[in-house]
């Protein structure tokens, strides 16, 4: 797992209280990992803090799965 992917997994496990094994690439935050709308906002904020990026709302709307989060962060961080 890439460094980014493992950090993302760690944040998801901590915030959503799920097992690491549930955090698969296709897993949807709301449909599979039990997040509600406030949880997803919080996740985006944690990603912003951890990776020192700003994720505008219109981009955040497209980050709905673990894989999408990892891709976005790989594309937008050095």
């Amino acid at each position, binding site marked *: 797992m890439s460094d980014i992917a493992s950090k993302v997994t760690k944040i998801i496990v901590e915030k959503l209280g799920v097992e690491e094994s549930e955090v698969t690439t296709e897993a949807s935050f709301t449909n599979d990992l039990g997040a509600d709308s406030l949880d997803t906002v*919080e996740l985006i904020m944690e990603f912003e803090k951890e990776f020192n990026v700003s994720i505008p709302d219109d981009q955040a709307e497209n980050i709905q799965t673990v894989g999408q989060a990892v891709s976005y962060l790989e594309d937008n961080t050095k």
Partner: protein
Amino acid sequence: MELKRVVVTGLGALTPIGNDVDSFWESLKNGVSGANLITRFDCSAYKTRFACELKNFEPTDFIARQDARKMDLFTQFGVVAADQAVADAGFDMDKVNKNKIGVIWGSGIGGLKTFEEEMLNLAATDMIPKINPFFIPKMIADSASGQISMRHGFRGPNFVTVSACASTNNAVIDAFNYIRLGRMVACVTGGSEAAVTRAGIGGFNALRALSTRNDDYKTASRPYDADRDGFVLGEGGASLILEEYEHAKARGAKIYCELAGGGMSSDAYHITAPHPDGLGAFLSMEDALRDANMVPEDIDYINTHGTSTGLGDPQEITAIENLFKDHAYKVSVSSTKSMTGHLLGGAGAVESVAAILAIKHQMVPPTINLFNVDEKIDARIDLTPNVAKARKIDVVLSNCFGFGGHNATLIFKKYNG
């Protein structure tokens, strides 16, 4: 229309002197002080460095981590106390009409720690807001009653009452009246507070309201003592289940006592100081007696507001003397704040549970730390000094008075079957 009778069918307690009802009573009976050196934050720069905190309490032992994360401490305290009371009431959740069970809770401040932490974060990030989405839902004082209703599926009336230190008594009175009117069959009521924070200790210190007896903190909460120097801040919560009498009888519920009356008034005097002649206190107690269809001679024990402040303690006794006349020297009086400290919006909750347990055990919990009674207080008043007293207790009156002049009084009566 005829008002329905209301009884108490469940209790819960999460207090600085016991994390459940039985251990709470043990401590009350034995005159235990709940004061300790503050652990919740680094208080070395503060004038007061002690409080009555909960001991050995881990919220996630009782609340799933994912749920606890979205609750301020005051809500966690409330949820745990309410869980105890609901379990104690033993409702058959498949039969009882949950649409007619409400949650009316009391808290004076609400999510203070949540507010404080988020603002400190804001200051630390250069005032650029990166505010957590859960900040508002955790902070607002109503979150306690919402969370309690969610846990049990209770869909009756739901809100939190705020009247500073009288908050819980107002919540209980609202719950009482809605059941009397037939709007609910039962209600989870009570109160909680978690204000042992930088803002809480610092703020009350700035008001000169807190004791600064750091070198002898176990004796700092000493209502009616000549050398009292302020109150001791307490945290925690307690809960009672109020239920319509026929509903309770029909399901074979355990009945602790009856709630006979509730009285309210305002001092209309000052933002923190009580009326110098105890006028608001007088009116509140008089209102409660009228509501209960009782006279002063019916009262056996008065659980006072008695916070250990210079101004407040004698005024309440004056009001009692003015209202009760000669009977003031026959009732037992005590302030359990000498043991629990002052739980602010949660005070009425722990004191209601103490009053109900006093009836159950026919024993008056003491006013501890009474070394020299203030000479302003008539020596004929029985303050139940230092040691619990066994006596006949049929009726208890419990007072709570809040900053801003909010007064609320409850009267609990023994149930004889």
